[in-house]
């Protein structure tokens, strides 16, 4: 019995030691992990919002119908310049696609930046190329149908990657509807949580 007790004690000791090592590492890396996430986000925001410049941006969590999304608004001297919408879709070929869609104050798309995607390299992965998403730039829902050609829209799909193209296009379409609602509500209401993000 003593031997068994000793065995269990040793296992507990090992577990305790590993617990300490893990917690220690976690505490040490917590800040840097958060920093890395913010850097990644900043990179995306800069890429999709050419009007960002040195202006501060504000993260607004906006609720529309049953969805909440993050909208990053940019103002310069009290003028609303535009925003970046953080959009997610699960309808890609494989897993989640997370991307940012930049829009100006008139609802025209200013850029797209995909931060997370596990789409097929060489096929759906080409969505990251400006050659593909460039077709969205300068367009708004008034003059452009945000659906793929197969769905009677104006968006040219990536060759052999209708699924990825459709997923991103539809997510953008919904995002733009939400943005319209956001603008109509004075670009401020329905705020769930506001968080300042300065450069």
């Amino acid at each position, binding site marked *: 019995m003593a031997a068994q007790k000793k065995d269990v004690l040793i296992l507990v000791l090992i577990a305790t030691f*590993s617990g300490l090592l*893990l917690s220690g590492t976690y505490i040490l890396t917590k800040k840097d992990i958060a920093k890395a996430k913010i850097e990644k986000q900043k990179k995306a925001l800069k890429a999709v919002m050419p009007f960002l410049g040195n202006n501060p941006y504000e993260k607004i969590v906006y609720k529309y119908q049953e969805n909440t999304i993050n909208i990053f608004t940019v103002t310069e001297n009290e003028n609303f310049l535009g925003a970046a919408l953080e959009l997610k879709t*699960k*309808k890609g*070929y494989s897993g*989640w696609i997370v991307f940012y869609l930049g829009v100006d104050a008139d609802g025209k798309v200013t850029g797209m930046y995909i931060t997370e995607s596990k789409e097929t390299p060489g096929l759906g992965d080409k969505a990251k190329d400006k050659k593909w998403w460039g077709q969205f730039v300068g367009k708004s829902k008034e003059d452009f149908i945000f659906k793929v050609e197969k769905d009677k829209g104006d968006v040219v799909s990536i060759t052999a990657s209708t*699924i990825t193209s459709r997923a991103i296009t539809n997510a953008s379409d919904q995002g733009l509807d939400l943005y319209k609602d956001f603008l109509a509500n004075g670009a401020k209401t329905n705020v769930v949580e506001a968080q300042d993000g300065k450069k």
Partner: protein
Amino acid sequence: MDSFIYLILISINAIFVSNIVFAQFLGICPYMGVSKKIDTALGMGMAVVFVMTLSNAITYMIQIFILEPYDIGFLKTISFILVIASLVQFVEIFMKKKMNVLYQSLGIYLPLITTNCAILGVALLAIQNEYNFIQSIVFSISSGIGFILALVLFAGIRERLEYAQMPAALKGTPVALVSAAIISLAFMGFSGLVKL
């Protein structure tokens, strides 16, 4: 009705479109070792489905009730693998007592289920895909079925390959992998089958 259809879509996706062996590369190790005979392959497959589903249920609850609320997500890997290891122990003890024949034929491969990337992989994927509990269970059972499908398909081919003529360098695992490449290619034909 909508969510029920979604469940069916999840299972078709897990078995064919994103088959865990041919598309996600999980569960290859035992695959190469066990799949030489169809009956052992089936027995192994069943054990895997059982462990996979049960462990998925438990790890899901750990994630929802312990890891997330207390923000200790970094303990995910260690807690999940310990759950799986313990489950395999229990299954082993149970099989030894009640299903001794199968236990003997599986031999060393039973404890090896612990290190089967498929089990931990599916547990992690279920969380990553943000499924709810029922969807998670359906996902793991279907992934397990996909695994059995892959294993049995393979066992059949390997039994035949034993008698085929080929250069010495290719005999054994190399040609098995080349066959896997062809099957994987065939499975790619399922893409687009399911609009999740």
